[in-house]
């Protein structure tokens, strides 16, 4: 029943090679398989095993009359570019939902301060689109004081005091650009490569591509904090057209991380085991009789459910964390917070979870009730300490070499202020800042720069698809080759775009 390790990857290879139309010796495929085997010690994990089964089912199905055999044969006559070496085992994506203002956090613009209150020069405004601006807005200088920190001398505003301690560990990307300027679509674009709902999220692509090392927890976990849920909702962690066991599983930050995780009263560990075995045994009998592969998926799902039940309490129980660590993050035990989620994220990667999305909401400072002066400092206070602590903590534990941390929003904010008081800024898609750390990303490095008013990127432009390509690259995946055929077309995270941002890689 259980396909032996590597088949799943063979399938992946098969698909990859099929698209790249070329010739390569069979050896190459094997080498890749070996590497990946090394990376997936838990290849006998039942869910993965079932997934593999599923894939073979699908392989037969999704390509119509073409059989598995021909696919495999195809794979071995295919030419592929050398595969990237995996630097990252896991990704922690700290998503600052709403679009934090780069101009109050990372981008000190003296010229903008100087021209504050004036109409923006026409040359800067040409062909730019904004969500809410009426056209009469004037420039607004950064509303925070900046200083230079660390050996790298990175400029940071006073709102991020704890970030000063990690500037030499992270890489700032100041030339981020995106395509869409409304929250929902822009978040989807960042996570799925498309502004419309329905495509797989990055975490789904990754777990589909290279699986997970966790036998007891889902490979792709979502944590949320902040005043409310992120706009865009569950489409942000949807598996799209990929099989649904690659969808992100939202965990709550305290208590039972998942609804219905507790067995009914009277059902202890053994009783739940016996229940699961009985259900699976009967399902197996039905499978033997009717042969529907969906039954195998259900058996695997029950096994995974049981394992999640058994392992989650240990995951959530922070009593084994030292006071020093709790203090570093600023965790108040029992209170849901970004800090709490950040420490959970570390515990999740320690347990082999592959991809963690961590949303913190309400960075949408348009002004008035959501102002740069009132609300933004609150958001910063909520995430600054724990973001820095996560990087430091991973580093201290030697995990930062294997874990890629990404920090940023779906877009940035305009150099113009909105006509509201207190001040705020509109959505800006043409230049904003994110940072990355760990797993082969150059520490203490800044890529890119923007013009003197912060309207556009002057050097080191990184498009969302480039960032996605780079994240996959660090995980050992060529973004052009991780594809899935749906309704007759091969889809990928980066659509038909994306270039790995080599400049920020250590080598």
């Amino acid at each position, binding site marked *: 029943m259980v396909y032996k390790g590597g088949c799943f990857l063979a399938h992946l290879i098969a698909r990859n090679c099929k698209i790249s139309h070329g010739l390569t010796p069979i050896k190459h495929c094997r080498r890749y398989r070996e590497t990946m085997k090394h990376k997936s010690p838990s290849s006998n994990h039942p869910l993965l095993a079932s997934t593999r089964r599923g894939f073979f089912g699908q392989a037969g199905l999704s390509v*119509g009359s073409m*059989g598995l055999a021909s696919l495999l044969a195809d794979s071995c006559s295919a030419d592929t570019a050398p595969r990237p070496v995996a630097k990252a085992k896991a990704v922690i994506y700290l998503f600052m939902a709403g679009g934090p203002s780069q101009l109050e956090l990372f981008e000190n613009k003296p010229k903008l301060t100087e021209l504050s209150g004036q109409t923006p020069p026409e040359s800067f405004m040409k062909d730019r689109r904004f969500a809410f601006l009426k056209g009469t807005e004037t420039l607004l200088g950064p509303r925070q004081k900046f200083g230079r920190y660390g050996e790298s001398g990175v400029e940071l505003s006073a709102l991020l005091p704890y970030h000063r301690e990690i500037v030499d560990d992270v890489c700032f990307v100041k030339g981020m650009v995106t395509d869409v300027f409304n929250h929902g679509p822009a978040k989807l674009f960042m996570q799925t490569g498309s502004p419309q709902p329905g495509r797989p999220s990055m975490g789904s692509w990754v777990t589909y591509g290279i699986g997970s090392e966790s036998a007891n927890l889902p490979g792709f976990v979502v944590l949320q904090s902040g005043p409310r849920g992120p706009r865009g909702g569950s489409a942000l962690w949807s598996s799209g057209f990929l099989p649904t066991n690659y969808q992100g599983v939202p965990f*709550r930050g305290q208590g039972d991380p998942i609804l219905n995780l507790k067995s009914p009263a009277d059902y202890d560990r053994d009783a739940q085991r*016996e229940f699961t075995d009985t259900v699976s045994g009967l399902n197996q009998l039905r499978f033997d009789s*009717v042969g529907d592969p*969906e039954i195998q998926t259900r058996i695997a799902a029950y096994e995974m459910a049981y394992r999640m039940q058994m392992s989650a309490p240990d995951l959530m129980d922070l009593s084994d964390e030292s006071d020093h660590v709790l203090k570093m993050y600023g965790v108040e035990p029992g209170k849901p917070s970004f800090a709490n989620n950040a420490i959970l994220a570390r515990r999740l990667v320690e347990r082999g979870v592959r991809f963690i999305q961590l949303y913190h909401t309400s960075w949408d400072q348009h002004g008035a009730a959501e102002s740069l002066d009132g609300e933004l400092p609150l958001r910063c206070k909520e995430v600054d300490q724990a973001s820095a602590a996560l990087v430091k903590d991973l580093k201290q534990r030697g995990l930062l070499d294997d874990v890629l941390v990404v920090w940023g929003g779906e877009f940035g904010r305009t150099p113009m202020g909105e006509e509201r008081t207190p001040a705020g800024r509109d959505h800006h898609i043409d230049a904003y800042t994110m940072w990355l750390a760990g797993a082969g990303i150059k520490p203490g490095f800044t890529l890119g720069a923007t013009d003197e008013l912060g309207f556009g990127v002057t050097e080191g432009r990184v498009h969302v698809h480039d960032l996605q390509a780079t994240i996959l690259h660090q995980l050992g995946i060529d973004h052009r080759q991780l594809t899935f055929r749906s309704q007759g077309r091969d889809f990928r995270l980066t659509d038909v775009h994306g270039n790995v941002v080599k400049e920020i890689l250590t080598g």
Partner: protein
Amino acid sequence: MGPVTVIHSMSVKRHILMTTLCWTAASMTGNAADDRIDFNRDVRPILSNHCFECHGPDAEQRQADLRLDQRSNAIAVHDDVAAIAPGNSSVSGMVERITSRDEDLVMPPPDSGERLSDQQVAVLRQWIDQGATYAKHWSFESISRPATPDVVPADWPKNDVDAFILARLNASGIEPSKEAERATLIRRVYLDLLGLLPSIQQVDAFTRDTQADAYERMVDDVLQSPHFGERWGRHWLDQARYADSHGYTNDNERSIWPYRDWVIEAFNRDLPFDQFTTEQLAGDLLDNPTLAQKVATGFHRNTLINSEGGTKADQFRDEQVKDRTDTTGLVWMGLTVGCAKCHSHKFDPVSQAEYYQLYAFFNSTVDRNSVTPTVQVPSATQTQQLDELSTLKASLSEQLDSDPDVEKRQKIWEKDIVVKAKSATADTDDGMSWQILPLSGKSTKDSTLSSLGDHSLLVTGTAADSEEYHSTARSPLTKIRSVRLEVLTDDSLPNKGPGRADSGNFVLSEFWFRTGDGRELRFARAGAEHSQAGYAVGKAIDGKGDTGWAINDAPEGSPNRNRIAWFVLPETLEVEEDHALTFKMQFNRKMFSIGRYRLSISSDEWVDRPGAAQLATLIAVEPDKRSAEQKAKLRKAFVQSDAELADLDRQLTETTKKFDSVKRSIPTTMILQELEKPRQAFRQIRGDFLRPGESLQPGVPGVLPGLPASDTQRDRLDLARWLLSKKHPLTARVRMNRIWMRLFGRGLVETENDFGTQGTLPSHPELLDWLAAEFMQQEWSTKAMLRLLMTSATYRQRSDTRTDLVNTDPQNRLLARQSRIRVEAEIIRDLALAVSGKLSPRIGGPGVYPPQPEGVYAFTQRKKNWKTSQDEDRFRRGMYTFFYRSAPYPMLTTFDVPKFNQVCTSRDRSNTPLQSLTLANSEALFELAEIFGQRIVEEGGASDLDRVHFAFRTGLARSPALAETARLQNYTQHVRKQFSNEEKVWTAVARVIMNLDEFVTRE
């Protein structure tokens, strides 16, 4: 997740390519041997996927003026070369470009990441060599009824459907599967038609029925069940994007369930699909529409409403109209017309102007991001109750009025009151417990509101022509029923106030409040110590800005004294402690605003019972100078204290209360209503409603049959009739395809939501056309078509996977077997309810609140008021579960119910560990397992074996195999070691049954 049966329909919309199925299909029907290229089957998918984006219908994107979707343009000579030279591929520019090795020349361009395969190139060459004939896209061709093919064995088909299916199987040399077991068949029919399980008795009766037409009779019986409307109504409600809340961040509750009831009832009486459509799209425009026909227009009122502060109604009205346009396109035509909002459709012949012509049909309704217009929909019982209560009221009033001595006794009473009033000092005691609110306030204009020590607000600054005061406080109470407004004099005010007009008067135009979580509260009734004639306090809550409460003409003389008004909510409002409340006072008379006031709230319901002092001031007025209001007030107070009349009065009060409460309980539902004068529609540049292009009249895409000639502007009724014209190529096909999808797991056209050029071709085109033609011939009867499909041999086949077909037809496109389909979320709950025996058979009505886990609203903008139902409503069918768009009932979401922010034409069918956790552990389902467990003990016989059989057959209809029995008996013995209580033992077994794959699967 076994990807095998996952149908990711929602992701299909945009990016569908021809799958390899068309090649498979070609080879299966033997067409591959015939090397005649079919444009629609073989060529269009290639061109559509790889060429049309730049060389297709969208003029803005078009490159080099070349269109490959039109033959005349494609064969024309551009720059000395024709892209397509019919009959000669070797001189065709297109062939040169698609085969070029030059990066600058090759098509599609390398940066598109696309490249044609050798096979695709060969097809295009062959097609050109054969003359490059184009054909209209298949789904735009009119529907004709194909002849039924001859097949072998000729006795396998039970009706025409089977002949079409078997013809394809014959051509591929595949045998159909055997008919399923009787128990499987009856469970299949019950699940497909009702979403419920047959009882053991029903299974036995069917199994033992030896007559030849046993199956047909069973299907007919099931079709008569009133639960049929629930199951098929729910499918339709998916397309109607039905939900019980407005959506967006506030997501307040709405009342539109009478529309849901209408849908259920329409399916039950088999309302023909043409009428069904017309009433929903344009019921309000029919001659003398019935209440039901108005309710039916709720279909397009299921759009979202944004009630967030600062929302621009026009922007969201535009969203709503677009949603109605897109939904109509998808539901009736299977077309993604919405793609033509910002630019002409890239693949289908729908121009941007044509999109806004469709939009124009929906652009003239009264609603503007608003709940209104609505209608009241009383039930028969309510109508009867109202009749009875008003008769009773009349009779009680008459009795009260007919007492001959009343005047005499009242005179005596009045004297007593005057005496009593002299001893009483103040008259502010209304017998209520009030919490004074420490307010902070601001005006929308220049007035300043400052708080005084007694928590009253004093207003200074310039009074405006019209202004609003917003006064905010945290609620010290969790239940609020009444609000007290004290208007107070102050030396700083003109004439000491309490108003700001020169006389000290004011006119409070409107008074209401809002909760911090966005609920807007309006009062049901109001009372005041004193109201000026023509300015009764009720006018401050009548929703009209030009009327209001004022206090001049006081019986005591001076208007300049403190006054009290009371306001009562229709029902108790529940809020969290310290929840913010913002009270809004609107003043629309120049300068006539309030100068100083104080607000209090109470959990109690205030009732109008004036005290002695207040009565005495009324009595002081000469009887013949008393106003009608004053007279009434005195009479009321007297009657309440009169030994002979008090009881009658109490009865009258109670009857009136009952009458009002019945009246209030009459549900309303949201409806469409046409404006008297249509709104002008425009093409919107880049889909932006603020950038109108040319103005447009309602119209339909040119590729489809035209509208009949008319002198007047077309409306929604014309649109509905056009969709249902027998000449329309899409409506019947799309509807039959979706019905097919419900019964076989996927449509004959797999992309049931895209019949355009990007969609997949039908696997059995002739069958689809035959069904569409038959549907119209059967006068659009859904039940007739269901009966036809479900009595076919194709439907009755076994669903077992066939090893001989794993490679040749893994997706079961040829229908050589039935499919196993995991039932939908609501049905999973229904099945659990059914086995427990607790399922409430009640049909229709407002949403219910089954138990749900805590923490569901942790991440919603606004916490929801989920009062878990304790009575029969706890056990209602899943489809009645109250549906909040921002936080749906979690079990539903886990099993793939979308949020209904948009139309849903088919759902995903996922299979995840979260589903396992829900089935195994959720409180709502375990509670049912416990009841099922009890039932097994009570009804399942005495022995373990009998009980295992009972449990198994109750859940799965069939009898267990030996190995299955053994496994369950082992489990029983195992749990008996843990539980001494037999009910717990059988609860454990019940739980296992309810967690089996087969339990949640239609086999």
